[in-house]
């Protein structure tokens, strides 16, 4: 295509030469060449980036990685140390998020214990590189106080973070991460159970939802995929 275009330019140049002064001709040629170059660069970029979003994902990432990361915004949560938790806390860190409640007898402890293994086995990052974060999002703010959440995450790993927010604020986070939760009546007012999304989601160091992991979780597999994602994302 470009080759034909160049030939056309040469022909145009020859016809122009016979009628117009050479200076104007030079300007026209420069502009045409510049536009052609620009078009080529733009086309190439578009082509290359489309390749990335569709077919060019390494097969080991295809199940998890979201090529178009979704920015997570507008968070007004509180962490287990009673500090404000906004999307600023995602900056520079890879963050794993999990949705659960402290009274959960099976799914949540299992995930927390798998993540504890992940934390124990993850190869150490360079001292200058920010550590990944595990964030337990309580979907039961009526029963999970800040103090209870502090006790809960510390039981599994001293670095784990828990966040809580009243339902309106919790929903801002949960919806953006594509998660769900709901309540089912129990034997009494205080003993209801909570149905909740069981996936782990990964937010990148720029604050975009970047990957989703479906249960059941195995520590070694999570580490392998996470390591791939981290390398791929870096470039």
């Amino acid at each position: 295509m470009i080759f034909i275009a160049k030939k056309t330019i040469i022909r145009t140049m020859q016809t122009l030469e016979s009628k117009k002064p050479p200076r104007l001709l030079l300007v026209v040629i420069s502009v045409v060449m510049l536009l052609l170059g620009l078009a080529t660069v733009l086309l190439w970029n578009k082509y290359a980036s489309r390749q990335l979003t569709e077919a060019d994902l390494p097969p080991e990432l295809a199940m998890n990685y979201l090529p178009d990361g979704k920015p997570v915004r507008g968070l007004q949560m509180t962490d287990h140390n009673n500090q404000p938790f906004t999307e600023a806390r995602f900056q520079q860190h890879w963050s794993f998020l999990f949705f659960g409640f402290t009274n959960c007898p099976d799914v949540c402890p299992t995930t927390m214990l798998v993540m504890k293994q992940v934390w124990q086995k993850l190869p150490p990052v360079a001292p200058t590189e920010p550590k990944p974060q595990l964030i337990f999002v309580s979907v039961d703010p009526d029963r999970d106080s800040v103090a209870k959440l502090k006790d809960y995450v510390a039981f599994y790993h001293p670095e784990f973070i828990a966040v809580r927010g009243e339902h309106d604020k919790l929903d801002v986070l949960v919806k953006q991460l594509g998660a769900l939760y709901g309540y089912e009546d129990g034997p009494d007012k205080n003993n209801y159970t909570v149905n909740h999304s069981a996936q782990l989601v990964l937010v990148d160091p720029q604050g975009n939802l970047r990957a989703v992991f479906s249960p059941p979780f195995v520590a070694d597999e999570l580490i392998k995929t996470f390591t791939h994602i981290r390398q791929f994302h870096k470039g």
Partner: protein
Amino acid sequence: MKKILCIMVLLSLSLGVQADAALVVHHAVVPEKPPSVMVMGGFMSIENPSEKEIRIVNISSIQFGHIEMHQTMIKDNLAKMIKQEALIVPAKGKLELKRGSYHLMLFNPKVKLKTGDTIELVLTLHNGTSQKVLAKVMPAMLDVDHSHHHH
């Protein structure tokens, strides 16, 4: 002849009852939970050597407010807990209470339970008989079934 038949019927009945009462429970464990959490999970392997299905219709313990039988179901990434009216142990078969599957929910421990403590559970079966099971409180670990490492 009538007498012999009668004895045979009685014998089979008594054998049936005897077998029904005997579930064999292995590795009954309750992983430790953070101090402030008032619900614990219970796991075990239940064997039924008899020729008939046995249903566990209730489980209680004087150490807990109450106990429920549940099944974890994860479908389309949504985790749900389905309360079970009974746990069915098939004839000559086994029922595994394990992570991500059937399990017990033990509500409101009367005292804080730590690794090494023993929990006494009473299993009530569908025929009205009951059976005691001792469960151990274990450290919070993924593996709740030490008998199946070869899997």
